[in-house]
């Protein structure tokens, strides 16, 4: 049997995606009516009146809807998806504004017309009368609480979360050394190349809906639509077609549009589609990252971190539909591969009149990593120790697994690391980037008048959070193997990776396996694709289902071949006696035999009919506990998350004239357990690193004091091009997870997590300045070098 699992096989998605045959949301429903929204131009205002008179004359207008038109559950606030005891003042918006708007971009009216141009014409003619209200922008304004985002939340604090595993105050007092500092991380956003979009078709005779959404969770979108539109879930199908990137923003649901578009399709009795434009994506979807952190660390003479007390203010925007998952993750994943004796993290999650904040790849981890890794660098500096040496002394050792931090993770389960080898990871990284040889690189550069520096950052990422995913595997009579799982795909190559798993488990050719994801018609139970969980969750689920199918195939084949199942193996789709390949039966035939028939619909099916020789009159055709068909459905539900890890190092050069930062080298050592497809994992790392570079050097959401997003376009929000992303050198460590049958850990978010921390470390090393805000621009560096009082570093400045 050829090895398929673990091989860098080329992706099966690519044949259609490289030839223009992908089916993304806006590629569907060319005949559908189009939607445009009137969105608030104010960050905080009372909507006094919506006058649609002028829009009514537009040729091709089909309807205009405001909050007044909504009824029943649709008129209620949008769901608060993840309640948490600490979220004492959770607030969500309405599908269309109900009297008050709380950020620029909040939808007020929905226009449906024959095409998008016409819909936008009509939207432009709708006259909304606003009474502007005082605006809260930024964490400082939220904390001052001079003005309020929600009148019934008097301090603008939605949640105060405390994570604590020991008496941090006592440990700090006992510690030989202490240091304190504060720092900020700016907002960025997922910014997938395809925005959101929804297309709905109502079948009036069947009273059923089919909805396509560019989502990271089709099953939950279905549940939300069924609830809000008062339909039986069985009457709602939701399909995620090809999705042009997600990175977190598309896990939020139901977006207002995911309810309003199906609602309009039912109301109008015709297909309706809305496709987000880029400006809408900037001002109406979600952002992430923005935090202020105050850190106090106690440590000993060797640089061992004894106590860490972290105070965080997290800007969650105008509403909290996704709860406080981001600060929960920051406050737990901050610990990274280290083990302070005492740790406390207190987070205030605050309201501002800005776009909502929900997970973007990394989901709070880059901020946590920034806090911890900057602490490690500061301890190293204070003691005059090498930065890798201090980290080494603080690492959890391989023999300490499972390691229990005594905290609660984002899945509500204990924060217990399952496995890893952090010292080996660090050793590999030092080797890969030649950490020990860097001083000669620095000296050589200095001799040429160039300024270079090296940085490092380490992280641990909880991946594969529950509650569960399922998989279905079915062998058709043709021998083709159909695999489905409920979670969705946004470019991770699931059609390939899950096919590799099933082909290996079942013993069939990769080409015979066809994978479907994110289609409630095929698999109705699922959670979604987020938190680096798809490979762990659905990978194991389809593996378990494939093992069931294999066992059943061997049983049926053993009867047909009159041997014991233990004597059989499945090789390239043929069940054969081990050591005697001539005694064999095709898996396709086994599939036929698995379904006892009365009617022979083709020649192959004759073998399964009731007068065929195989029929045993002493037993019922379908035995007790058996089921017709060569198929199985199974689920994987982990006891808790599995923890991947990695370390990055960067070498940067800072131009002393322009203060432009050029990344000369970027090295990654990564451990996500057993690899299904190393090519795909590498690709995930590359993409993550690019987003890390963006967050470290370029990407920021510029809000002015009125809550206007000043850079809501690709002209002004600077995402990295090929010229900004360095060549990435990678090495893999494979520490299997003991928690799941395949030993895998998630890989999706890893690349982005240490980006800001690693590049800050490298720039500090180059210039000898202290960086306390990310991203860092050339202007920032110029200012820092002119004013920084802490220029105590030994860098070449």
């Amino acid at each position, binding site marked *: 049997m050829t090895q398929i699992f673990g091989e860098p096989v080329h*992706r099966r998605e*690519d044949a259609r995606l*490289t*030839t223009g045959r992908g089916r993304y949301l806006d590629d569907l429903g*060319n005949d559908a009516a189009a939607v445009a929204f009137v969105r608030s131009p104010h960050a905080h205002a009372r909507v006094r009146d919506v006058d649609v008179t002028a829009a009514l004359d537009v040729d091709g207008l089909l309807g205009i809807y405001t909050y007044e038109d909504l009824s029943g559950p649709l008129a209620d606030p949008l769901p608060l998806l993840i309640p948490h005891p600490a979220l004492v003042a959770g607030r969500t918006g309405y599908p269309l504004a109900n009297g008050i708007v709380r950020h620029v971009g909040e939808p007020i009216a929905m226009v449906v017309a024959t095409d998008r141009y016409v819909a936008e014409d009509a939207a432009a003619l709708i006259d909304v009368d606003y009474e502007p209200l005082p605006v809260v922008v930024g964490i400082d304004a939220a904390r001052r609480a001079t003005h309020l985002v929600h009148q019934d939340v008097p301090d603008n604090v939605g949640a105060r979360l405390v994570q604590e595993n020991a008496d941090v105050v006592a440990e700090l007092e006992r510690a030989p050394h202490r240091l304190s500092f504060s720092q900020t991380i700016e907002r960025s956003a997922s910014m997938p190349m395809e925005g959101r979009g929804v297309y709905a078709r109502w079948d009036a005779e069947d009273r059923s809906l089919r909805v396509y959404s560019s989502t990271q969770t089709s099953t939950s979108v279905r549940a939300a639509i069924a609830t809000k539109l008062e339909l039986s879930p069985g009457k709602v199908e939701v399909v995620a077609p090809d999705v042009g990137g997600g990175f977190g923003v598309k896990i939020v649901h139901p977006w207002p549009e995911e309810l309003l578009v199906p609602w309009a399709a039912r109301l109008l009795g015709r297909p309706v589609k809305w496709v987000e434009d880029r400006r809408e994506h900037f001002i109406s979807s979600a952002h992430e990252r923005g935090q202020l952190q105050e850190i106090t660390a106690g440590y000993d003479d060797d640089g061992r971190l004894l106590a860490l007390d972290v105070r965080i203010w997290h800007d969650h925007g105008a509403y909290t539909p996704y709860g406080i998952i981001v600060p929960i993750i920051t406050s737990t994943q901050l610990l990274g591969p280290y083990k302070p004796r005492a740790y406390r993290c207190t987070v205030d999650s605050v309201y501002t009149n800005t776009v909502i904040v929900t997970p973007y790849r990394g989901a709070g981890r880059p901020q946590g990593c920034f806090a911890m890794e900057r602490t490690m660098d500061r301890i190293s500096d204070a003691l005059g120790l090498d930065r890798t040496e201090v980290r080494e002394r603080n690492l959890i050792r391989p023999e300490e697994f499972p390691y229990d931090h005594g905290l609660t993770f984002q899945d509500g389960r204990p924060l217990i690391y399952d496995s890893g080898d952090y010292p080996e990871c660090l050793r590999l990284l030092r080797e890969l980037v030649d950490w020990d040889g860097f001083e000669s690189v620095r000296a050589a550069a200095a001799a040429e008048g160039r300024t270079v520096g090296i940085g490092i950052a380490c992280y641990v990422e909880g991946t594969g959070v529950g509650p569960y995913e399922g998989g279905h595997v079915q062998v058709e009579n043709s021998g083709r193997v159909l695999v489905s799982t409920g979670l969705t795909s*946004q470019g*991770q190559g699931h059609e390939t990776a899950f096919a590799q798993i099933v082909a290996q488990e079942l013993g069939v050719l990769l080409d015979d396996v066809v994978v479907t994801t994110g289609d409630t018609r095929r698999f109705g139970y699922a959670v979604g694709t987020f938190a680096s969980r798809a490979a762990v969750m659905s990978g194991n689920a389809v593996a378990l289902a494939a093992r069931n199918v294999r066992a059943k195939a061997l049983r049926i084949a053993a009867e047909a071949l009159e041997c014991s199942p233990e004597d059989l193996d499945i090789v390239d789709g043929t069940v054969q006696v081990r050591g005697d390949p001539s005694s064999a039966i095709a898996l396709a035939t086994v599939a036929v035999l698995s379904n006892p028939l009365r009617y022979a619909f083709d020649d192959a099916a004759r073998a399964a009919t009731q007068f065929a020789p195989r029929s045993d009159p002493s037993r019922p055709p379908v035995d007790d506990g058996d089921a017709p068909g060569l198929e199985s459905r199974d689920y994987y539900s982990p006891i808790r998350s599995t923890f991947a890890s990695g370390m990055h190092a960067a070498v940067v050069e800072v131009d002393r004239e322009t203060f432009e930062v050029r990344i000369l080298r970027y090295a990654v050592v990564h451990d996500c357990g057993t690899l299904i497809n190393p090519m795909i994992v590498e690709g995930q790392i590359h993409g993550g690193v690019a*987003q890390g570079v963006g967050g470290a050097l370029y990407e920021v959401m510029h809000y002015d004091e009125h809550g206007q997003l000043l850079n809501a376009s690709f002209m002004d929000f600077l995402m990295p091009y*090929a010229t900004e992303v360095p060549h990435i050198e990678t090495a893999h460590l494979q520490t299997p997870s003991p928690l799941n049958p395949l030993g895998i850990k998630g890989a999706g978010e890893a690349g982005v997590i240490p980006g800001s921390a690693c590049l800050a470390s490298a720039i500090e090393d180059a210039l000898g300045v202290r960086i306390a805000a990310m991203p860092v621009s050339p202007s920032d560096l110029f200012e820092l070098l002119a004013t920084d009082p802490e220029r105590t570093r030994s860098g070449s400045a």
Partner: protein
Amino acid sequence: MSPEQQRPVTLVVNGVGHRVTIPVRRLLSDAIRHDLGLTGTHVGCEHGVCGSCTVLLDGRPVRSCLLLAVSVDGAEITTVEGLAGADGTLHPVQQAFTECHALQCGFCTPGFLLTIAAGLEDNPAPTEDEATELISGNLCRCTGYQNIRRAVLRAAELRRSGAAG
């Protein structure tokens, strides 16, 4: 409100002429996608920055979201659907993208493919720096560009060896 002004136009896409009457304000990207049904051309920003909507206009890469369809009457347009040979043989750059894992979600991919295909006509043997330069006007949020750069070099190699296309 007065109906939109319409105008007949001939869009020659992938060697096939289409006579359509369309509103004068319709973007070329929308005309290709919605009037001709060629949805391989993607729209990522509608302000000419991301490059997803790149098509070839008389062999030169252009942003189809920045052009009015009526302005390209009669010009030869190539979209991603026209890259492969008539017999379905992939263009070298299409083959290289699969080999090098140069795409993930695939949304930006058509714009890259056409940009690179045209670039290799001008410079059949780019260096690594030239490959970076060639793709530096297109945004990709998934790949980090490393494998796209590799695919440029691989496509050039395939193209020179005549192994594909």
